C-alpha cells in the first residue's frame, strides 16, 4: 500500500492565485485597526557624525502628531535583542541599537520617529524636527576600513573587523602549489546590490495594555522567529505575543528578522497603547535597509598541464556595513563550499567581514554567490592559459556520480551530486558545439560574442540549530476535507499549492480539498520560516509524514469497516476500497465522520478524530542541489550594451513537486542575477552618500531586458 503520485510532479495551477489576480490578497498595508497611528523616521543624511542637539518641539506641535520618540524613549524598554541561534555565548554578536544614540553611522541611520494620525502628517513633522549632526570622516571602502588609523564605524571598538576566519592548516595547499606547473591567481569583485522585494517591509503592531498582549502583523519570512525575538525584546512571555504573517510581496532574504524600524514600531505601540503602523517607502528600502554582495575573493588555483585541479585557495573580504543583519555573513559558507562540484584535493581559505559607514549587509538570495563568481571565473582564466575549452576543463574536473560519496578537504560531504549530468544536459540544450562554431564565424565578422559556462553546488534544506526542524499538522474534518497547518512561511514560493499536492497524494484526495494554513503563530506549528532553501524539503517532509499518519488511521478504520486487510486497500479520489474493486468501499468523509462521531465503533487501539502531527528533520544538515548555467552574450561595440542571446539552466532540485513552480523559481533567480550583474548597483560616493535611492537610479530589469530562459531538469530522488 503506497500513496499514488497523482498531483506531485504535475503543473498544478496555484491555489493562491485567485486572490492575488483579483486584488484580494491581503498584504500588511491592506490591514488596519481602529485608531491606527502611522510612523515616519528621521534619518541621518551624513555617513558618520556626532548628534549634537535634538529639538523635537516644533515636530511635536504639528497638529495630528501623537508622539516624537528618540533613542532614550525606546532603550529603556529594550531587553535582549538576539535572534534565535545568535547569542554572545555562541560567540556571534553584532552591533545593535534601535535609534541612533549620540552618533550616526551611515546615511539613513534612523535618529527619531514621529507617530501621527496619518503618514502624511508624520512626514510633515519629520521635516519640522531639528536634529544637528556634526559630520566626521566616514569609511566607505572595506579595504580602507582595515587600514591602521581608519575611522572606526563603531566608536569604542578596537577595529572595523567584525569577524575573521583564519583558515586553518594550509600545509596541503602550500605543498601542492609549490610543485604545480600552472598557478593562476586573480581577485574577483561583486558590487553592492540592494534587496528589492516589490512589497517593502511593513508592520502593524498593537499592544493591548489591559490584556498585556502584543499582536503584530508583519511582512516577514519567519513569524515564529519574530514572536520569540519580540517576547525577549520586551521581556514578556511568548504567550503574550502573537505574530501574523499576512500575504508577503517577496522578500529574498530581506525579511528574515525584524528590522530596527520594526522594533521601534513595536516599542511605540507598547508605549502608546494604540495600534502603530509603518510601511517602508522605496527610498528607505534602497537607502537604509539591508544590502547585499559588495564582497571580493582572491582565488588561487593550481592545475597540472592537462588542466586537472591540484589545489584551490580562496581569500574573502566582505563589507557588512554598520549594522549587519543576523547571520548575514556568508563567510562560514563560502569558506566551506568554494570548491563547488569539483574534485579539489587540497584547499585553503580565509575570510574577513568588515564594518563600513554604509547600510548593513543582509542575507540576500544566494548570499554566498561570490564563491561561484570567483571560482568559475578563475577556471576560465585557467582554460585560457592552457588553451582549453572551458567546458572541457569543467568536464575534466567535475565530480562524477561514480565517485560518490565525495568528501572535500573543507569538510563538505556530497552524498548526491549530478553536476556532471547537468553540464552535459545544458551543453546539449544550448547546442554548445554549434555555438562555438557560430562564435568563431561571428567574431570573424567583428561581432563580440561570448559564451559563459558555470557550475555550482548549492546547499539547501539547511537543518541545524534553530533551523533543524519544521512541523505540520494535517487534519481531515467530518466533511472529508483536509487542513494542513505548516510552520513554513511562503511568500511567493507557492507553498499553498506544493504542500497541498504532497498531502493530497498521501491522503488520496483531490488537491482542491486540501487547504494549507501558515503564518499565524497562534495556529501554525513553530519553525524558522523561510530561509536556507528549506521549505519544500523540510516543511514538505513534515506535511507528508503528518498526512501519512492520517492515512494510516483512515486505512485502519476502513479496513475494519470493509473487513479487509489494511494492506489491500487504496484511497483514490477520496474513496477507500480494496485495490481493483472500487465498487465496494467507503469515502474519506464516511471514515472521518466515524472517527469524530462514533469513537466507540472504531477498531481497537484507534484514537478518535483524524489528525496527524509530525516534525521533520532531514538526515543531514544540508541537502545538496546543483546546476549548470550556460549563456551566449553579445556586447555592442558602439554602446557597450550587453545582450543575452541564449540562456540555459540545467538543474537538479530532487523530485519536482510542481515543474511550473521550479521553473518559476529558476527564472526569478536568473533574472535577479542578470539584474545584479548588468543593471542593479547600490552605489555610494566617497562621502558615503547613497546615489541610487530611486528606481530611476537603481535599475531593475524589465521584460525587455531578459531573454527567454530554457530549462533542463535532472531529477534525483
Amino acid at each position, binding site marked *: 500500500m503506497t500513496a499514488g503520485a497523482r498531483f506531485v510532479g504535475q503543473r498544478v495551477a496555484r491555489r493562491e492565485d485567485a486572490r492575488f489576480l483579483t486584488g484580494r490578497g491581503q498584504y500588511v498595508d491592506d490591514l488596519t485597526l481602529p485608531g491606527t497611528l502611522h510612523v515616519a523616521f528621521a534619518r541621518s543624511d551624513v555617513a558618520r557624525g556626532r548628534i549634537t542637539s535634538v529639538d523635537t518641539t516644533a515636530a511635536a506641535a504639528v497638529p495630528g502628531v501623537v508622539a516624537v520618540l528618540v533613542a532614550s524613549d525606546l532603550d529603556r524598554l529594550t531587553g535582549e535583542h538576539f535572534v534565535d541561534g545568535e547569542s554572545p555565548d555562541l560567540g556571534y554578536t553584532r552591533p545593535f541599537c534601535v535609534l541612533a544614540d549620540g552618533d550616526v553611522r551611515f546615511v539613513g541611520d534612523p535618529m527619531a520617529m514621529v507617530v501621527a494620525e496619518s503618514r502624511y502628517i508624520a512626514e510633515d513633522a519629520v521635516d519640522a524636527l531639528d536634529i544637528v549632526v556634526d559630520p566626521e570622516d566616514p569609511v566607505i571602502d572595506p579595504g580602507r576600513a582595515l587600514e591602521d588609523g581608519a575611522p572606526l564605524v563603531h566608536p569604542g571598538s578596537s577595529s572595523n573587523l567584525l569577524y575573521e576566519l583564519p583558515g586553518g592548516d594550509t600545509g596541503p595547499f602550500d605543498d601542492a602549489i609549490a610543485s604545480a606547473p600552472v598557478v593562476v591567481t586573480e581577485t574577483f569583485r561583486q558590487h553592492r546590490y540592494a534587496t528589492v*522585494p516589490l512589497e517593502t517591509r511593513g508592520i502593524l503592531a498593537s499592544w493591548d495594555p489591559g490584556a498585556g498582549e502584543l499582536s503584530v502583523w508583519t511582512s516577514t519570512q519567519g513569524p515564529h522567529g519574530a514572536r520569540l525575538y519580540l517576547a525577549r525584546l520586551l521581556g514578556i512571555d511568548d504567550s503574550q505575543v502573537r505574530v501574523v504573517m499576512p500575504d508577503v510581496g517577496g522578500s529574498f532574504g530581506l525579511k528574515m528578522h525584524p528590522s530596527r524600524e520594526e522594533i521601534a514600531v513595536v516599542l511605540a505601540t507598547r508605549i502608546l497603547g494604540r495600534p502603530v503602523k509603518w510601511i517602508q517607502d522605496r527610498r528607505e528600502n534602497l537607502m537604509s535597509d539591508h544590502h547585499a554582495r559588495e564582497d571580493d575573493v582572491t582565488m588561487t588555483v593550481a592545475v597540472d598541464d592537462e588542466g586537472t585541479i591540484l589545489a584551490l585557495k580562496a581569500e574573502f573580504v566582505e563589507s557588512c556595513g554598520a549594522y549587519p543583519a543576523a547571520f548575514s555573513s556568508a563567510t562560514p559558507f563560502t569558506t566551506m563550499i568554494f570548491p563547488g562540484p569539483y574534485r579539489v584535493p587540497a584547499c585553503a581559505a580565509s575570510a574577513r567581514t568588515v564594518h563600513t559607514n554604509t547600510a548593513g549587509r543582509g542575507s540576500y538570495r544566494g548570499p554566498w554567490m561570490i564563491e561561484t563568481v570567483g571560482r568559475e571565473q578563475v577556471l576560465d582564466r585557467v582554460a585560457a592559459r592552457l588553451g582549453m575549452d572551458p567546458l572541457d576543463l569543467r568536464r575534466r574536473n567535475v565530480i562524477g556520480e561514480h565517485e560518490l560519496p565525495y568528501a572535500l578537504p573543507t569538510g563538505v560531504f556530497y552524498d548526491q551530486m549530478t553536476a556532471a549530468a547537468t553540464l552535459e544536459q545544458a551543453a546539449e540544450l544550448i547546442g554548445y558545439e554549434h555555438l562555438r562554431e557560430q562564435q568563431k564565424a561571428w567574431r570573424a565578422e567583428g561581432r563580440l560574442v561570448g559564451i559563459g559556462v558555470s557550475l555550482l553546488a548549492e546547499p539547501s534544506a539547511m537543518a541545524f540549530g534553530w533551523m533543524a526542524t519544521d512541523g505540520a499538522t494535517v487534519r481531515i474534518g467530518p466533511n472529508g476535507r483536509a487542513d494542513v497547518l505548516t510552520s513554513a512561511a511562503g511568500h511567493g514560493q507557492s507553498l499553498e499549492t506544493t504542500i497541498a499536492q504532497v498531502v493530497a497524494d498521501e491522503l488520496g484526495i483531490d488537491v482542491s480539498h486540501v487547504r494549507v494554513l501558515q503564518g499565524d503563530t497562534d495556529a501554525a506549528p513553530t519553525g524558522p520560516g523561510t530561509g536556507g532553501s528549506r521549505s519544500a524539503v523540510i516543511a514538505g517532509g513534515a506535511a507528508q509524514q503528518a498526512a501519512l499518519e492520517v492515512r494510516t488511521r483512515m486505512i485502519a478504520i476502513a479496513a475494519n469497516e470493509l473487513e479487509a486487510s489494511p494492506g489491500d486497500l487504496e484511497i483514490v479520489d477520496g474513496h477507500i476500497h480494496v485495490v481493483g474493486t472500487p465498487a465496494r468501499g467507503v469515502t474519506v468523509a464516511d471514515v472521518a465522520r466515524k472517527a469524530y462521531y462514533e469513537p466507540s465503533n472504531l477498531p481497537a487501539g484507534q484514537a478518535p478524530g483524524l489528525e496527524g502531527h509530525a516534525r521533520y528533520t532531514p538526515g543531514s544538515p544540508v541537502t545538496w542541489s546543483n546546476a549548470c548555467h550556460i549563456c551566449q552574450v553579445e556586447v555592442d561595440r558602439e554602446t557597450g550594451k550587453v545582450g543575452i542571446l541564449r540562456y540555459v539552466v540545467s538543474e537538479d532540485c530532487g523530485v519536482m513537486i510542481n515543474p511550473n513552480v521550479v521553473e518559476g523559481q529558476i527564472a526569478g533567480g536568473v533574472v535577479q542575477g542578470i539584474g545584479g550583474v548588468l543593471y542593479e548597483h547600490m552605489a555610494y560616493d566617497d562621502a558615503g552618500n547613497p546615489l541610487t535611492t530611486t528606481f530611476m537610479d537603481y535599475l531593475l530589469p524589465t521584460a525587455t531586458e531578459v531573454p527567454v530562459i530554457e530549462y533542463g531538469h535532472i531529477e534525483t530522488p
Partner: protein
Amino acid sequence: MADPTAVTMTVNGQQRRALVEPRKTLADFLREDCALTGTHLGCEHGVCGACTVLLDGEAVRACLLFAVQAEGGDVTTVEGLTPPDGGLSPIQEAFREAHGLQCGFCTPGFIVSVTAFLRDNPSPTDDEIREGLSGNLCRCTGYQGIVNAVRLASGRE
C-alpha cells in the same frame, strides 16, 4: 496642509465622493477612501507600475496623480476588472495558467496594464508583448510566465 477638497469620480462603475487633502494621491484615495486595496504601492515614484489603474480608459500610475486630478473621471481598478460572479477574466485566467505570478504584489498592476495593452493591440508579437510589459516591474517571475500569459490571453481575447 491645505483644507480638504471635495472630489467626485466613478470607480469601478460606482460614484464615489469624498473630502480629501489636495495632496492625497489617487492611489491613497482608492486604498483608503474607497477601500480598494488591490491597487498596490511599490515605489511611489512612477516606475514600478504596481499602482496602475485605468483612468478614462488609459493606464495611469495612481501614485503620480492626486485624487483631485481625477475629479469627474472614470477609474477602473483590478477589482473592477474581475467578473462579478467571482470568476477570473480571460487575462487573469491566463496569468494563472501560465504561472505568471508568484508573490502577487505586482500582479494587479500587470493585470490592469495588460488589459489596456491587449485592448489596443489584440494580436501582439513577442517583442510587442515585452515592450508592452516594460512599464511594470516583477521581482519573482523573471517575466517568463508573464510573457507567456499575455501570449495565451491574446489568443483568447
